[in-house]
């Protein structure tokens, strides 16, 4: 798979989710059995009932690995940039935290997601949130213009993670912080998973090893890098997921094999700071 192809597949995959509300990494609609709704998933990854009720319906697609810690740290008046903002869920929660004196900007490369985010902003009457169609590897934000960068289960989808962190560093003000949650690996995945487009879109095969991920952040210039939380990415979410189904069906991956994968895939919340 070349990088251009992956990007196209990711964009198409998430466009489908935006318009049909089908599932990806963590499913909005389950394929069988007891449904894992976006709300169920969001609670499991740490959002509170209050937060879930706060945002317009449709903003939470249940796709993230959860970033409530980052949201909790936001202060009134801060300028926040959300990388891969999707339908806007985290942006709206962030907007409530930064208040009228703050601003939240969401960047996403999928037009369908931006459309849906804008509709949700209108529904919720948010005045301090805006969305831009753009790429996280080529951020359309000026140097040193942002206090906090948040991102929830998105950077794993990028084929150039170093560039994403370089760009994040560039746009942060001195002393600014990045607080991301993402999927990383504890061990390398078997080739048949690694080479699957479906697994890439489903946030699994684009993930890199945890040590490499943290080293990449460091190499972009960040310091005080802390892993604030690390949890196993729940298999039920993966197994109820259309991407995971495709892997199982097309590649003869047994449930046992999928179980083995689960232990290799974790969700982490990382904080890092740009030098003052």
């Amino acid at each position, binding site marked *: 798979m070349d990088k251009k192809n992956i990007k196209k597949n990711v964009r198409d995959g998430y466009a489908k989710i935006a318009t049909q509300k089908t599932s990806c990494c963590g499913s909005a609609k389950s394929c069988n059995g007891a449904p894992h709704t976006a709300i169920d998933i969001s609670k499991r990854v740490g959002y509170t009932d209050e937060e879930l009720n706060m945002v317009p319906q449709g903003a939470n697609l249940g796709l993230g690995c959860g970033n409530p810690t980052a949201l909790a740290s936001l202060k009134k008046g801060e300028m926040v940039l959300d990388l891969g903002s999707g339908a806007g869920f985290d942006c709206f929660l962030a907007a409530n935290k930064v208040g009228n004196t703050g601003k939240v900007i969401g960047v996403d490369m999928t037009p369908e997601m931006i459309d849906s985010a804008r509709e949700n902003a209108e529904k919720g009457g948010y005045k301090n949130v805006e969305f831009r169609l753009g790429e996280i590897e080529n951020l359309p934000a*000026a140097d040193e213009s942002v206090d906090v960068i948040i991102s929830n289960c998105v950077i794993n989808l990028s084929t150039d993670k170093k560039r994403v962190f370089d760009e994040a560093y560039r746009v942060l003000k001195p002393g600014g912080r990045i607080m991301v949650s993402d999927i990383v690996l504890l061990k390398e995945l078997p080739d048949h998973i690694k080479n699957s487009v479906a697994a890439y879109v489903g946030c699994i095969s684009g993930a890199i090893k945890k040590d490499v991920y943290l080293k990449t952040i460091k190499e972009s210039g960040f310091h005080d890098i802390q892993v604030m939380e690390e949890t196993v990415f729940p298999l039920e979410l993966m197994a109820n997921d259309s991407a995971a189904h495709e892997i199982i069906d097309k590649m003869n991956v047994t449930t046992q094999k999928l179980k083995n994968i689960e232990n290799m895939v974790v969700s982490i919340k990382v904080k890092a700071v740009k030098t003052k």
Partner: protein
Amino acid sequence: MKKELIDILCCPTCKNNLTLQTEKEENGEILTGKFTCKKCKVSYPIEDGIPDLLPRT
């Protein structure tokens, strides 16, 4: 998009400042128009209030 947020925008490719041409504006919100990069001269449309700042190269 709000006018005051132009300051924090830049060209996604060369990171230079953008010039704004407004076609339709309502209550301080730019609904239609375009950005042009001062350096590389690439244009980025604004439609329905959303700037399309995907790199063109």
